[in-house]
Protein backbone atom coordinates (compact mmCIF):
# COMPACT_ATOMS: atom_id res chain seq x y z
CA UNK A 1 0.00 0.00 0.00
CA UNK A 2 1.30 3.46 -0.82
CA UNK A 3 2.05 5.96 1.92
CA UNK A 4 -0.77 8.21 0.75
CA UNK A 5 -3.33 5.43 1.01
CA UNK A 6 -2.10 4.41 4.45
CA UNK A 7 -2.28 8.00 5.70
CA UNK A 8 -5.79 8.45 4.31
CA UNK A 9 -6.95 5.29 6.05
CA UNK A 10 -5.32 6.34 9.31
CA UNK A 11 -7.08 9.69 9.13
CA UNK A 12 -10.33 7.89 8.40
CA UNK A 13 -9.96 6.07 11.70
CA UNK A 14 -7.78 3.00 11.07
CA UNK A 15 -5.14 4.26 13.48
CA UNK A 16 -3.54 0.85 13.94
CA UNK A 17 -2.15 1.20 10.41
CA UNK A 18 0.18 3.87 11.78
CA UNK A 19 2.40 1.01 12.97
CA UNK A 20 3.21 0.30 9.29
CA UNK A 21 4.56 3.80 8.83
CA UNK A 22 6.62 3.55 11.99
CA UNK A 23 8.01 0.19 10.90
CA UNK A 24 8.93 1.50 7.46
CA UNK A 25 10.67 4.67 8.54
CA UNK A 26 12.04 4.04 12.02
CA UNK A 27 15.48 2.89 10.91
CA UNK A 28 15.81 5.79 8.48
CA UNK A 29 14.99 8.18 11.31
CA UNK A 30 17.56 6.45 13.51
CA UNK A 31 20.20 6.64 10.78
CA UNK A 32 19.63 10.33 10.20
CA UNK A 33 19.65 11.06 13.92
CA UNK A 34 22.89 9.15 14.30
CA UNK A 35 24.51 11.05 11.46
CA UNK A 36 23.39 14.38 12.85
CA UNK A 37 24.43 13.88 16.43
CA UNK A 38 26.11 10.51 16.85
CA UNK A 39 25.54 9.01 20.25
CA UNK A 40 24.93 12.44 21.73
CA UNK A 41 21.19 11.81 21.99
CA UNK A 42 19.24 8.68 22.82
CA UNK A 43 18.31 7.51 19.36
CA UNK A 44 15.27 5.55 20.50
CA UNK A 45 13.96 8.55 22.39
CA UNK A 46 14.41 10.78 19.36
CA UNK A 47 12.72 8.22 17.11
CA UNK A 48 9.75 7.95 19.47
CA UNK A 49 9.35 11.73 19.62
CA UNK A 50 9.54 11.98 15.85
CA UNK A 51 6.76 9.47 15.31
CA UNK A 52 4.54 10.91 18.00
CA UNK A 53 4.96 14.38 16.46
CA UNK A 54 4.32 12.92 13.03
CA UNK A 55 1.08 11.39 14.24
CA UNK A 56 -0.08 14.77 15.52
CA UNK A 57 0.97 16.47 12.30
CA UNK A 58 -0.60 13.91 9.93
CA UNK A 59 -3.89 15.77 9.44
CA UNK A 60 -1.93 18.81 8.22
CA UNK A 61 0.09 16.84 5.72
CA UNK A 62 -1.18 17.45 2.20
CA UNK A 63 1.19 15.20 0.20
CA UNK A 64 2.69 18.16 -1.59
CA UNK A 65 5.99 16.48 -0.77
CA UNK A 66 6.94 12.87 -0.08
CA UNK A 67 6.01 11.50 3.32
CA UNK A 68 9.66 10.53 3.78
CA UNK A 69 10.76 14.16 3.35
CA UNK A 70 8.16 15.25 5.86
CA UNK A 71 9.44 12.69 8.34
CA UNK A 72 13.02 13.80 7.78
CA UNK A 73 11.94 17.39 8.38
CA UNK A 74 10.39 16.45 11.70
CA UNK A 75 13.52 14.47 12.58
CA UNK A 76 15.78 17.44 11.89
CA UNK A 77 13.57 19.69 14.00
CA UNK A 78 13.38 17.24 16.89
CA UNK A 79 17.15 16.65 16.90
CA UNK A 80 17.92 20.38 16.80
CA UNK A 81 15.43 21.08 19.57
CA UNK A 82 16.85 18.37 21.77
CA UNK A 83 20.44 19.42 21.11
CA UNK A 84 19.58 23.03 21.92
CA UNK A 85 17.87 21.92 25.09
CA UNK A 86 20.94 20.02 26.14
CA UNK A 87 23.00 23.07 25.04
CA UNK A 88 26.05 21.11 24.09
CA UNK A 89 28.13 21.01 21.00
CA UNK A 90 28.36 17.60 19.43
CA UNK A 91 31.81 16.31 20.18
CA UNK A 92 33.98 14.46 17.73
CA UNK A 93 33.77 11.22 19.69
CA UNK A 94 30.02 11.29 19.27
CA UNK A 95 30.27 11.53 15.52
CA UNK A 96 31.41 8.23 14.20
CA UNK A 97 32.16 9.02 10.58
CA UNK A 98 34.39 6.18 9.57
CA UNK A 99 36.46 6.41 6.48
CA UNK A 100 35.16 3.98 3.87
CA UNK A 101 38.12 4.29 1.63
CA UNK A 102 40.19 1.12 1.34
CA UNK A 103 43.67 1.55 2.64
CA UNK A 104 45.43 -0.77 0.20
CA UNK A 105 46.61 2.18 -1.84
CA UNK A 106 48.35 3.82 1.13
CA UNK A 107 51.41 2.79 3.06
CA UNK A 108 51.42 2.80 6.86
CA UNK A 109 52.67 6.37 7.20
CA UNK A 110 50.23 7.69 4.65
CA UNK A 111 47.43 5.79 6.35
CA UNK A 112 48.33 7.39 9.68
CA UNK A 113 48.36 10.88 8.21
CA UNK A 114 45.11 10.16 6.40
CA UNK A 115 43.46 8.91 9.60
CA UNK A 116 44.63 11.96 11.53
CA UNK A 117 43.14 14.22 8.93
CA UNK A 118 39.87 12.29 8.97
CA UNK A 119 39.78 12.80 12.75
CA UNK A 120 40.45 16.52 12.32
CA UNK A 121 37.64 16.71 9.81
CA UNK A 122 35.37 14.87 12.21
CA UNK A 123 36.20 17.32 15.01
CA UNK A 124 35.52 20.24 12.73
CA UNK A 125 32.14 18.84 11.60
CA UNK A 126 31.14 18.58 15.25
CA UNK A 127 31.92 22.28 15.77
CA UNK A 128 29.81 23.49 12.85
CA UNK A 129 26.60 25.39 13.56
CA UNK A 130 23.55 23.10 13.65
CA UNK A 131 22.10 24.35 10.37
CA UNK A 132 25.35 24.00 8.50
CA UNK A 133 26.02 20.56 9.96
CA UNK A 134 22.49 19.40 9.13
CA UNK A 135 22.77 20.53 5.51
CA UNK A 136 26.23 19.01 5.18
CA UNK A 137 25.17 15.69 6.72
CA UNK A 138 22.10 15.43 4.51
CA UNK A 139 24.18 16.23 1.43
CA UNK A 140 27.28 14.20 2.24
CA UNK A 141 25.95 11.17 4.08
CA UNK A 142 22.29 10.88 3.13
CA UNK A 143 22.58 11.25 -0.61
CA UNK A 144 20.07 14.09 -0.61
CA UNK A 145 19.84 16.46 -3.52
CA UNK A 146 19.80 20.16 -2.76
CA UNK A 147 16.10 20.18 -3.57
CA UNK A 148 15.47 17.41 -1.04
CA UNK A 149 17.51 19.24 1.58
CA UNK A 150 15.54 22.44 0.95
CA UNK A 151 12.34 20.48 1.45
CA UNK A 152 13.53 18.86 4.67
CA UNK A 153 14.97 22.05 6.13
CA UNK A 154 12.06 24.14 4.86
CA UNK A 155 14.29 26.73 3.31
CA UNK A 156 15.17 27.95 -0.14
CA UNK A 157 17.52 26.22 -2.53
CA UNK A 158 19.89 29.16 -2.37
CA UNK A 159 20.01 28.91 1.40
CA UNK A 160 20.94 25.22 1.14
CA UNK A 161 23.73 26.08 -1.29
CA UNK A 162 24.91 28.79 1.02
CA UNK A 163 24.83 26.55 4.10
CA UNK A 164 26.83 23.81 2.42
CA UNK A 165 29.28 26.29 0.95
CA UNK A 166 29.79 27.94 4.34
CA UNK A 167 30.05 24.57 6.07
CA UNK A 168 32.84 23.47 3.75
CA UNK A 169 34.53 26.84 3.98
CA UNK A 170 34.40 26.71 7.78
CA UNK A 171 35.75 23.17 7.76
CA UNK A 172 38.66 24.20 5.55
CA UNK A 173 39.32 27.22 7.77
CA UNK A 174 39.23 25.14 10.96
CA UNK A 175 41.56 22.53 9.58
CA UNK A 176 44.13 25.06 8.44
CA UNK A 177 44.34 26.62 11.93
Amino acid sequence: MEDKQIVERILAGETELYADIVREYQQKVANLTYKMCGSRLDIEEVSQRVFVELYTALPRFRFQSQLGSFIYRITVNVVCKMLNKAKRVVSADELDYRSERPSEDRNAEQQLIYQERINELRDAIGRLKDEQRTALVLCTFEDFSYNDIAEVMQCSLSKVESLIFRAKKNLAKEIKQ
Partner: protein
Amino acid sequence: MQCPVRVDVVDSVMERVRQKELPEVAGSSLTKRLFTWGGSLAAAAVVALLLVNVLAVKPVATSDQQLGEMIASLQDFESYGAVEDAALEPIDFLYGEIY
Protein backbone atom coordinates in the same frame (compact mmCIF):
# COMPACT_ATOMS: atom_id res chain seq x y z
CA MET B 1 27.47 4.91 7.48
CA GLN B 2 24.43 3.60 9.30
CA CYS B 3 23.29 3.75 12.86
CA PRO B 4 24.81 0.74 14.64
CA VAL B 5 21.65 0.27 16.68
CA ARG B 6 18.58 -1.51 15.26
CA VAL B 7 15.71 0.60 16.45
CA ASP B 8 12.26 -0.76 17.17
CA VAL B 9 9.90 1.82 18.57
CA VAL B 10 6.67 0.49 17.04
CA ASP B 11 5.19 -0.74 20.31
CA SER B 12 6.14 2.30 22.38
CA VAL B 13 4.92 4.71 19.72
CA MET B 14 1.62 2.88 19.21
CA GLU B 15 1.06 2.89 22.97
CA ARG B 16 1.45 6.66 23.06
CA VAL B 17 -0.56 7.11 19.90
CA ARG B 18 -3.50 5.12 21.26
CA GLN B 19 -3.70 7.54 24.18
CA LYS B 20 -3.86 10.52 21.84
CA GLU B 21 -6.85 11.57 19.88
CA LEU B 22 -5.92 12.29 16.33
CA PRO B 23 -6.59 15.99 15.64
CA GLU B 24 -9.46 16.39 13.20
CA VAL B 25 -8.69 16.70 9.52
CA ALA B 26 -9.36 20.30 8.44
CA GLY B 27 -12.02 20.71 11.08
CA SER B 28 -15.44 19.54 12.00
CA SER B 29 -18.58 20.31 10.06
CA LEU B 30 -18.87 23.66 11.87
CA THR B 31 -15.29 24.59 11.07
CA LYS B 32 -15.80 23.34 7.53
CA ARG B 33 -18.83 25.56 7.17
CA LEU B 34 -16.93 28.53 8.56
CA PHE B 35 -14.07 27.85 6.14
CA THR B 36 -16.49 27.56 3.25
CA TRP B 37 -18.29 30.79 4.09
CA GLY B 38 -15.10 32.61 4.93
CA GLY B 39 -13.46 31.35 1.77
CA SER B 40 -16.42 32.44 -0.35
CA LEU B 41 -16.44 35.91 1.18
CA ALA B 42 -12.72 36.30 0.67
CA ALA B 43 -12.97 35.14 -2.94
CA ALA B 44 -15.83 37.56 -3.58
CA ALA B 45 -13.80 40.41 -2.08
CA VAL B 46 -10.81 39.58 -4.27
CA VAL B 47 -12.96 39.41 -7.39
CA ALA B 48 -14.56 42.75 -6.51
CA LEU B 49 -11.18 44.38 -5.99
CA LEU B 50 -9.92 43.02 -9.28
CA LEU B 51 -12.96 44.29 -11.13
CA VAL B 52 -12.54 47.73 -9.61
CA ASN B 53 -8.90 47.80 -10.61
CA VAL B 54 -9.55 46.53 -14.11
CA LEU B 55 -12.30 49.05 -14.74
CA ALA B 56 -10.28 51.88 -13.22
CA VAL B 57 -7.09 51.17 -15.13
CA LYS B 58 -6.48 53.38 -18.07
CA PRO B 59 -4.38 51.91 -20.86
CA VAL B 60 -0.88 53.29 -20.78
CA ALA B 61 0.35 54.64 -23.98
CA THR B 62 3.45 52.63 -24.65
CA SER B 63 5.55 53.21 -27.61
CA ASP B 64 6.92 50.33 -29.69
CA GLN B 65 10.37 51.16 -28.38
CA GLN B 66 9.27 50.93 -24.76
CA LEU B 67 7.56 47.62 -25.44
CA GLY B 68 10.66 46.34 -27.14
CA GLU B 69 12.79 47.33 -24.16
CA MET B 70 10.44 45.60 -21.75
CA ILE B 71 10.53 42.41 -23.78
CA ALA B 72 14.32 42.56 -24.02
CA SER B 73 14.69 43.00 -20.26
CA LEU B 74 12.43 40.00 -19.67
CA GLN B 75 14.48 37.91 -22.05
CA ASP B 76 17.67 39.00 -20.31
CA PHE B 77 16.43 37.75 -17.00
CA GLU B 78 17.98 34.36 -16.47
CA SER B 79 16.00 31.84 -14.58
CA TYR B 80 17.68 30.35 -11.57
CA GLY B 81 18.11 27.05 -13.23
CA ALA B 82 18.37 23.65 -11.70
CA VAL B 83 21.02 23.17 -9.09
CA GLU B 84 23.16 20.15 -9.54
CA ASP B 85 22.29 17.43 -7.23
CA ALA B 86 24.95 16.96 -4.64
CA ALA B 87 26.93 13.86 -5.38
CA LEU B 88 27.06 11.20 -2.77
CA GLU B 89 30.14 12.03 -0.77
CA PRO B 90 31.23 9.91 2.08
CA ILE B 91 33.68 11.57 4.37
CA ASP B 92 36.57 10.50 2.14
CA PHE B 93 35.37 12.65 -0.71
CA LEU B 94 34.60 15.49 1.68
CA TYR B 95 38.17 15.09 2.85
CA GLY B 96 39.29 15.43 -0.76
CA GLU B 97 37.36 18.68 -1.11
CA ILE B 98 38.53 20.22 2.12
CA TYR B 99 42.17 19.18 1.85
